[in-house]
């Protein structure tokens, strides 16, 4: 149960970071204000029924879901959040589960020699971007750009289930040197 006094202090304590987060992801003042407003309005309306363990976690989850919803509906310039995601992805490849990369791989466009491709993601995970770049004689930035552009061009079946694969994607990476990465 939240009283109007605790509500006010929850607001003063948390609104700023939530707003900063929404703005960082959307770069849209209006959407950010609306999201923060909706989160707190919702909190107030459900004040008698809610049992919150961590207020910050609860509010962050709500903000996250709203940002993703606005993103799905393309209410703001989606390239901002997408670029952030690509950067995050590239920086964290070594921490990903192999299963994730395998699955992503099936979503990437088919490359001429499938056997080659399959090695790529796991290779990146194993060797890191630096080593891959050295081996391919490319700059690190070029390798990163290749991954970025691959993430931009997933081909999925319009009817929900992600399905078969069509060429493109990491193509350029191999195009530059198609002998590589075969271990």
């Amino acid at each position, binding site marked *: 149960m939240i009283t109007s006094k605790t509500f006010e202090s929850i607001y003063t304590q948390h609104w700023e970071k939530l707003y*900063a987060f929404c703005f960082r992801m959307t770069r849209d003042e209006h959407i950010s204000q609306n999201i923060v407003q909706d989160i707190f*309005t919702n909190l107030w309306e459900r004040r008698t029924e809610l049992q919150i363990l961590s207020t910050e976690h609860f509010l962050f989850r709500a903000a996250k879901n709203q940002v993703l919803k606005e993103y799905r509906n393309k209410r703001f310039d989606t390239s901002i*959040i997408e670029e*952030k995601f690509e950067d995050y992805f590239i920086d964290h490849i070594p921490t990903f589960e192999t299963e994730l990369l395998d699955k992503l791989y099936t979503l990437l466009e088919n490359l001429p020699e499938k056997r080659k491709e399959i090695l790529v993601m796991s290779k990146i995970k194993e060797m890191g971007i630096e080593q891959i770049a050295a081996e391919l004689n490319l700059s690190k930035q070029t390798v990163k750009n290749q991954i970025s552009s691959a993430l931009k061009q*997933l*081909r999925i079946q319009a009817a929900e289930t*992600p399905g078969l694969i069509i060429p493109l994607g990491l193509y350029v990476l191999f195009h530059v040197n198609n002998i590589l990465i075969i271990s």
Partner: protein
Amino acid sequence: MAKKITHYLDYLTDRNNESSISSAEKKLLDDFMQQEYNGSKWNTREMGSKADISAHIYENIKKDNLIKSTFKRYYKYAIAAVLAAILGLGILFKSSHNQPKELLMTTASVTDSVKLTDGTLVYLAAHSTFKYPEHFNGKIRSVELLKGNAFFKVAKDPSHPFIITSPQIKTKILGTSFHISLDHNKSTVTVVTGHVSVYTKKQKTFLRPNEYAVFTSADGLKKQRADDMSLYSWYKKDIELNQVTLDKVFTLLGFKYGVYFTAENERILNTKITLYIKNGLPLQNILDQINYITHLKLRPYGERINVSN
């Protein structure tokens, strides 16, 4: 077979929405959002005035929900205090019925300042909340310090008393500079220049420069002499501390950053250090500096900082 080209993030959010996301994919999406959230900070250049946006959002929430505003209750106290003061002075005044818009200012880990429309300067320490009207009207200038620490330089205007309402105490000023500190159950007002009256529901005291009043629910309101006024320079842009005991350094950092220090033993507090605190320096930098000078370990646990050898 219809295929669409889509971004990986778009694919993940779609799957998330349909709850068909795999646990590894969900973890990737969640970790990404969490990192972005952790790195989110206010940026005035990009986001504009914090006080304005906060007030705007809060107004809208209130409009939607008819939240009983708690600060109206503080207002009642303020008006009661003013009435008491005025009856004592034998002066009549008319309270204004159309209250101007209230603005809310909240600091997180850094200090902030605001200039009110009457020219009064308010320096708000970290982790503090201050409420003030968009413009003053009526005979009194009424503001509220709801939490934390603030230093006030009140613009001189004897015909419009400046009143600061806090949960436990009220402070009335004609034109002066002073510091207010609100702790969990202790409120302190320290005067640097000019004269200030401090009221509680039952008591009243009058302060001159270098005096402070401290209120605790156990002992009520007490007046004391402040021995070191340099502590109240925390609001200044750059602070120079020359051969000052750690005890005082910690008090000043406490005012400025809204933290408190617990020392392993008393001896530590008597160590003298020389420190230069540049404007806008994060607390951690200062703690690192102190660690570098003294080799003491300073470990933050939320708002408490543990100091040990």
